[in-house]
């Protein structure tokens, strides 16, 4: 299944690049994909995180959590990478302070795996990918908001580089400046990730 989909992606890459007239670029610009509402709430997932395969762009059943079928997993605000203490894989990741669109090449160094010392994607407000507004004097209170300009870079177990932007932590990717979002009674459910990501199939660090 997984190999099959890699072939599909590869075929797509080949066909799209074939269509392009550019002779100087070996591959066409990669396409950023958006996946909406990945439910990371353990209560909805039989107590598990939600596992995700970046190559196929689909979620992976919790039964396969002890396999290399997944790259990244979401469990409320914690993001795990299939490595070390989180899974049997050898994936690694880091957060870089460059906007998703501006990050055109994955860093060569600086990747970490999940371990006892902590997750590769640090957890906690203002430590990794999100901030927590608490009892803010203005704006939405008690909201988990992704920090602007933070991009997660993942090196998958099969050596592919991918970049991920956490777009939203709330169901339906709502506009957070609305009164509806500010009101805790009308705010959409939390724990629903919307992510935007791009994966380079050819093994290079190029993410464009």
């Amino acid at each position: 299944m997984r190999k099959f989909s890699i072939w599909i992606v590869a075929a797509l890459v080949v066909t799209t690049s074939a269509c392009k007239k550019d002779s100087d670029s070996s591959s066409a610009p990669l396409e950023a994909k958006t996946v909406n509402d990945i439910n990371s709430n353990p209560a909805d997932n039989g107590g598990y995180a939600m596992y995700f395969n970046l190559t196929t762009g689909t979620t992976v059943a919790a039964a396969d959590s002890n396999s290399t079928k997944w790259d990244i997993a979401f469990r409320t605000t914690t993001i795990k990478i299939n490595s070390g203490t989180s899974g049997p894989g050898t994936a690694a990741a880091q957060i870089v302070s460059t906007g998703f669109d501006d990050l055109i090449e994955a860093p060569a160094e600086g990747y970490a795996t999940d371990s006892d010392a902590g997750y590769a994607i640090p957890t906690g407000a203002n430590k990794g990918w999100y901030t927590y507004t608490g009892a803010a004097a203005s704006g939405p209170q008690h909201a988990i908001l992704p920090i602007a300009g933070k991009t997660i870079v993942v090196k998958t177990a099969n050596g592919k580089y991918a970049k991920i932007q956490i777009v939203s932590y709330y169901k339906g990717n709502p506009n957070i400046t609305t009164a509806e979002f500010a009101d805790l009674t009308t705010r959409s459910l939390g724990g629903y990730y919307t992510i935007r990501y791009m994966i380079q199939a050819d093994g290079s660090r190029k993410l464009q």
Partner: protein
Amino acid sequence: MLKQLYYIVPAMLCCYLNASAQQAVPDTASRESLDEVVVTATRTPRSIKNVPVPVTVIGQDKIERIGALRLNEVLTEQVGLQIISNHGTGLQLQGLSSDYILILIDGEPVIGRTAGTLDLTRLAVGNIQRIEIVKGPSSSLYGSEAMGGVINIITKKMPAAYTGQLRARIRRYNTVDVTAEASKQNDRWGWYLFANRLSTNGYYTTDSISKAMPAYTAWTINPKLQFKISRSVELTLNTRFYIEEQKNNQGVQETGGLHLLKERTRNTDVNISPVLTYKPDDRNRLQVRNYLTAYQTKTTIDYQPENTLYDESFFRQLFNRTEAQYDRSFSDAHTSTLGIGNIIETVEATRYDDGNKLTQQYIFGQHQWMPSKQFNMVAGFRYDRHNQYSDRLSPKLALRWNINRRLWVQASAGGGYKAPDFRQLLLNFTNPVAGYSVFGTSVVAAGIARLQADGQISSLYMDAATIQNIKAESSVAFNASVAYNPFTRLNVQLNLFRNNINDLIDTRPIALKTNGQNVFSYFNYNKVFTQGLEFQTSYSLPFGLQLSAAYQYLDAKDVTVWDNIKAGKVYYRDAATNVDKKVKRQDYGGLYNRSKHSGNIKLMYDNARFHYNISVRGIYRGRFGYGGDVNSNALLDDPAEYADGYTVWNVSAQQFFNKLTIEAGMNNLFKATNTYDPLLAGRQWYIGAALRFVKNTRQQTGKQG
């Protein structure tokens, strides 16, 4: 300078008025003139014309004229000074916050800060003869905290005749302020006694459980004694006692819902300062001073209506400074100053270990050179050695050139510093709910060792032993001014300033605990700058009218953030699309709580014939970042992250009868409000009366000056 003139003209008018109606009391009347003597800028009495740093003087008349009760009400009407509410009523000067501003009473520092803020409402103004404000760093003379500037409160002198005053003011919110003072200077000795009681119900500015200004009652007692031991030796004893009882309500969200709390705070503040002055001749002066001050605050919070304890905290600080200063004039052109001092400080607080003793020794030197009336120069330094942080050298160089009668320029450069505060040195705190720990740099090694012994440390990010010798936060600053009075009635002054502040102290994680939480300590790492210009002008109109206007432009930025923005590395999240975009340079608003534009306009009227005055003042504060973030980048760059600007209009009037002064006024006439400025109360009227007496002198009333 302009500022002076701007007070001088009404002051002179009033003096004229006094002179015609009665005889002014010498000494108590602060009659400012161009030759006014100031002491703060050089720690020696010196004509304001020959001081090469920006100095502003606010006289007693001015303070009384605007009906001010506390220091914040006086300072808020000065350009470039911004009153900021943050753990008390603090001050901001040249964009630097309360932590970086030294407040002195007769040259001795006021202690007792909460989160860096020295609450200006603790300082009564009835005993003030004048306030001297020196902008720019003066650490070369005063050491720590004199980074943004120095506010020196000069208390009243003792007049030759037995003089006294009773004054009462009533204001909205059941605010009652009563002052009594009396003094006399005899041949060999003199005395001064000041007592003030202020009580208020406080007020709410928002629909909240807590009052923005709590109800409080405060007593200030300021007795002073002076002895002439011999022709050349004088001993003075200045004391001040302050006690304040505060009450407020709070609410806490608990599992059972919102629980009402009652908060009671008691602040006490004692200053005792004997000064021995030996002045054998006009060329030599030796002063030995000892200043002992104790500040204490205790807060008790009880559940209501049960009256059971919710929380209790205290903070006690004891500060003793012994200092000797020798001034020598070699000729009219050269004056040298040399001083040494020793400070012992102890602090006890809820979250600190016991037995904290801080000691500091310092030496300072200064040379003033005045080759002619046109030109003068001051060069100075101070070296501080402290037992808890690195040594520190603060230099200063200042020049002034009086080009002609109508034009002068001055320029100064200096270093300022602020010592790490107690929290940064001594805090030993573990959050009982979240489980993280914070250690001050003086206790971090022991704290980590203790946690390691308890098996609570999972991994160290760095060696705790290397985290020591934290440096003071320091600055290098430049000030330049030019003043011009093209004709007698008009004055114009322009000041430019730039402060480069390094080694700002902030927390960083140093270890991971087994509970997944971090251990934090304090490091020097941040840099900011503030720069701007200040423009002041005053114009004397006919018929006793005086118009003045002032404006400050301020630009205060975090250097790292600014560099990253310039490099295109800072993003914001577009709310409509949830896409990250780069922050544009022009969108970065800099540090929070700084208004780019601020200023004031004042119209003063003095009627010499019927002995009254009226003043109308408009104080403008431009929009400022309130500290919130709407676009997920934790910096000030979106219009919604600003609080609106506002203008407060105040009107006041005084009518002088023989011994009696009647005063009335209205503060915040047009009810300016701002969610992010809790000190903006509604419209506040006041009325008051003062009765003066001078024994054995006929026709004495006053010093409306």
